[in-house]
């Protein structure tokens, strides 16, 4: 049971170098992101055909009748015998044409949507190197966790430093796994920033030297329970990132719609087409991604809570006792359940659902940190 000091310090070194490599990867992603341009790979007309007539309701009714704005003029019938009508019709046609142009412009701006972001070859290479670095960092990080376990001769998730490190490991794993299925490299910088900050926090504030577990923690079910909690938390972390991006992008798109409807002017960023937000995938894609990630993590979180209850039953004889940790796990669970419901409920989907997902993530954070560091400190019953 004695702690192997050599392996323990190896673990610490791996942790540090993993973090450094992550940081480098983060810069790489950021660079790729920054160097990418909104391309006009597809013509404006094509775009307009794809997402035409956005917000038909916002515009003159005639447009709706006219169908796609490309054929806007065709909705107006001109009576050659009536000059007044002809003038009116011409004016209307001009108006429609103006709307159409604004619309096209707006949609060219929003083109970030469907991979219309053009990444110069050099930036693309930087991005690939960043992925490589992420994999290397991940391997070092994994090594740090494994050696930590070897050093302490137990599973490497027994205190807050270890939990935090594992959560980051899972978050990076999720990101890498997502990358094998979807083109989500753009997500890199947004994942690596919180991961690096989080690891920094874990390695400094939360750090403790490896040691044995207290008997109450030394249980089969605890291991299962903690793994479930860590895995779902790591994945939830990703969902929080994508949810924030969704909210940002959604606001942007709404603004765009205003511009398209002629109710607002394009901001400088929009005109120069250089804003970060523009390069994000569409809010719909971000919403889908957030949902998928949460739908993946939610059953695992449910399982973690149940495993925790089984463990509590074995350890304390009651499977549920509303202690702060249990209470906050429950709150987190209920909030994510609410998210799933909100997403299926008219009027709640979209922005409100996203807000709920962030509330849920906050509850998760409280569960992990505030309950341990603050709430129990103030109101704890014994040092659980």
């Amino acid at each position, binding site marked *: 049971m004695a702690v192997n000091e050599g392996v323990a310090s190896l673990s610490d070194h791996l942790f540090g170098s993993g973090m450094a490599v992550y940081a480098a990867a983060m810069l790489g992603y950021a660079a790729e992101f920054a160097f990418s341009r909104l391309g006009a790979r597809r013509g404006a007309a094509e775009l307009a055909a794809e997402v*035409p007539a956005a917000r038909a309701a916002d515009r003159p009714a005639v447009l709706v009748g006219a169908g796609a704005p490309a054929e806007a003029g065709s909705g107006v019938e001109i009576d050659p015998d009536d000059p007044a009508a002809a003038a009116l019709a011409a004016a209307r046609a001009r108006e429609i044409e103006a709307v159409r142009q604004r619309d096209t412009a707006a949609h060219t701006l929003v083109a970030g949507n469907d991979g219309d972001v053009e990444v110069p070859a050099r930036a693309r290479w930087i991005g690939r190197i960043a992925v490589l670095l992420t994999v290397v960092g991940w391997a070092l990080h994994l090594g740090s966790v494994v050696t930590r376990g070897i050093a302490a001769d137990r599973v490497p998730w027994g205190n807050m430093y270890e939990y935090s490190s594992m959560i980051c490991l899972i978050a990076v794993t999720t990101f890498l796994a997502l990358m094998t299925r979807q083109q989500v490299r753009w997500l890199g910088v947004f994942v690596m920033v919180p991961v690096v900050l989080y690891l920094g926090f874990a390695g400094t504030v939360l750090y403790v030297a490896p040691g044995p577990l207290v008997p109450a923690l030394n249980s089969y079910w605890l291991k299962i329970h903690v793994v479930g909690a860590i895995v779902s938390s790591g994945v939830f972390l990703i969902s929080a990132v994508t949810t924030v991006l969704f909210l940002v992008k959604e606001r942007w798109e709404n603004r765009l719609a205003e511009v398209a409807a002629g109710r607002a002017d394009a901001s400088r960023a929009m005109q120069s087409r250089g804003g970060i937000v523009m390069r994000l995938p569409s*809010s719909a894609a971000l919403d889908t991604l957030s949902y998928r990630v949460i739908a993946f993590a939610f059953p695992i979180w449910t399982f973690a809570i149940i495993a925790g209850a089984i463990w509590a039953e074995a350890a304390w004889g009651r499977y549920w006792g509303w202690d702060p940790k249990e209470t906050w796990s429950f709150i987190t669970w209920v909030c994510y359940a609410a998210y799933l419901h909100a997403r*299926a409920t008219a009027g709640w989907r979209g922005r409100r659902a996203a807000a709920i997902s962030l509330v849920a993530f906050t509850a998760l954070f409280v569960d992990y940190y505030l309950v341990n560091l603050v709430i129990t400190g103030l109101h704890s019953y014994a040092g659980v």
Partner: protein
Amino acid sequence: MTSSTRPHEPAGAATDLAPKPSPGDPDAADPAGSIDPAGLIDPAGLIDEEAVGFAPDSSSGRRLPEGHADARVAVAPDVFAPAGSDGRDGADGAAGLGADPTSAGGARRSAAGRAGGAAGQYASASGGTRAGRHPALALAVRSWRQLTSMRTALVLLFLLALAAVPGSLLPQRNINPMRVDQYLSKHQTLGPLLDKLSGFDVFAAPWFAAIYLLLFISLIGCLSSRIRWHARALFTAPPKAPARPGRLPGGSSWTSPLAPADATAAARAALRRRRFRASVAPAGTQRPDGSPDHSVAAEKGYLRETGNLVFHVALVGLLAAVGFGSWFGYQGTTLVVTGDSMANTIISYDQFSGGKLVDTAKLRPFSLTLNRFAAAYEPNGEPSDFRADVAYSPDLDAPTRQATIRVNHPLVLGNAKVYLIGHGYAPHFVLRDAKGRTVWQGNVPCTPRDGMFTSTCTVKIPDTGLAPLGVRKEPQQLAFSGVFTPTTHLDPTQGYVSTFPAARAPGLTITGFVGNLHLDEGVPQNVYTVDTQDMRQLTLNGPAGTARNAQVLALNNPRQRTLSGLPGGLSLEADSVAEFATFQVKSDPFKREALIFAVLIIAGLIASLRVHRRRLWVRASPAPEGGSVVEIGGLSRSHGDGFAVELGQLTTLVREATGPAGGREAAPRPEAAAPPPGEPAAPGGAAAPSTTESRGTAAGGAASNASEREH
């Protein structure tokens, strides 16, 4: 989304009758309404999920931000004939295709239209019977519908989460009553107010119960209808094919040498092989224009809704199990010194609490004896293992068995479990009279105070054999209070302290009192404190010298463990120390049920979040040159891109099954051209005897996600 719920339409009819999927896509409700000439999109307000109780599955929906939603509708070509013009298609809607929010507008709109048509039918069917409902009844029905809607569930879920928060911030009686008292004495004004609001019993508070009971009533209400719908869906054929399945997003068509009837049979067989539930329109069925209907309707993924229902039912089950468990369960704590026994009767517990329906006279009559308690420690004093070896008899006349109880390893006796929750030291004291005869002896458990097991000991000896004193016959009872240190070390500043939790050098720092303990006056007393009000402190002779207020006894040293100089020549020896274990007995007769429901919850969740429901239609119609034109199309309510891929595979499969395709060039189909309302929808578009011709991708979401994938 502003759905048009028309007051005169008894949407309730829809709630009861409409199949779950057909409530359709809430997105589709309003914008579509504005362009639907027949106004049939949402005649009963059915599409508003509120009216139905819950929303359609939108799980992976690609949605456009609010304002965008209509865009797709506006641009989408009319895929089906308008719902109103094709009575049967409208009826199909009853079997319901919940429009996929992920799919492009055309399909959504039509599906919504179809659903609407269905709703119209149902509404008129049942409207008559309910139109003259008593207002009070109507109100009740409306409230019930409100309560069982998913929006209500959402709000209640939120409230539940919110209500749980104070339970974690304020001290709770059921967890730590002492802290509650501290809090109350510290917050003179706020405390009582919070107390009135059940702030210290949040999880037993009426308002907390109100929230979860409402939630579960709501859940039960909506489950009952959902289960009915789902059962019906399970036993009816998938909804019939639309007029032009090939025009659904991702749909396609080709010509086949087979006759229409053979082509559909082949398609059905192919889909069956992929484990779709597939049924061919029965022979003799006609299209609205009178032509024979050769179509296959197939569906897969019923497990999604099944899983979802299992999940929600299990949730109700879990709550019931928890509730019953607390009514029929009990718990008691008892301290057993090594060598002693306990029996499962209410009097042998130091603390006991039972559920409302527990018969305390009929607890399971087991008993156990603590033979040995052993604790192991790390060199730094951190505990590493505790074990209690016990002999127990599980029932009244059952033979005695041996067991070891450890932390996390309770002894299981039927519904009851015996947990080891604590331990400590109980020094053994012997009180002797002047002649050396034993007057009293016993082990006195001391309360551990720290990790090194420095413990507080209180010894009360009411029957000392000493005569009462004075006119008031004050009894001469003895009390000692001391500090037990298992590994005693003399610290220059702190005095005697314990440096290790094991009893390596047990010591006892002790003071004594004589006087009236007031033990026999019916006032409950804490065994761990002495009320010295009517007592006089003794001066003691012992190892530390004579006539001292305090003495230090070394329990391992026979010459340094006796106090003398007590009144009447009495002496007290602390001759050994035993360990005690604290056991908690818990009985929860519904634990197993709770576990089963918990497992079902997970299983249901996984099915409901991982399985995707999808529908597929094949329609064959005679081609002018012989053979047939085969159209295929499908929708998935939740699985945009995955379905696009699957649809591709299935299309290939069905194409192969229906024979080689002709080699003619596909004629591009005018994108937005809908068949004029009156015109019979000619499947496959007689105009285009095409080879495979695909329309877009299966779903709007697919477009984005497919292109997200790196090729």
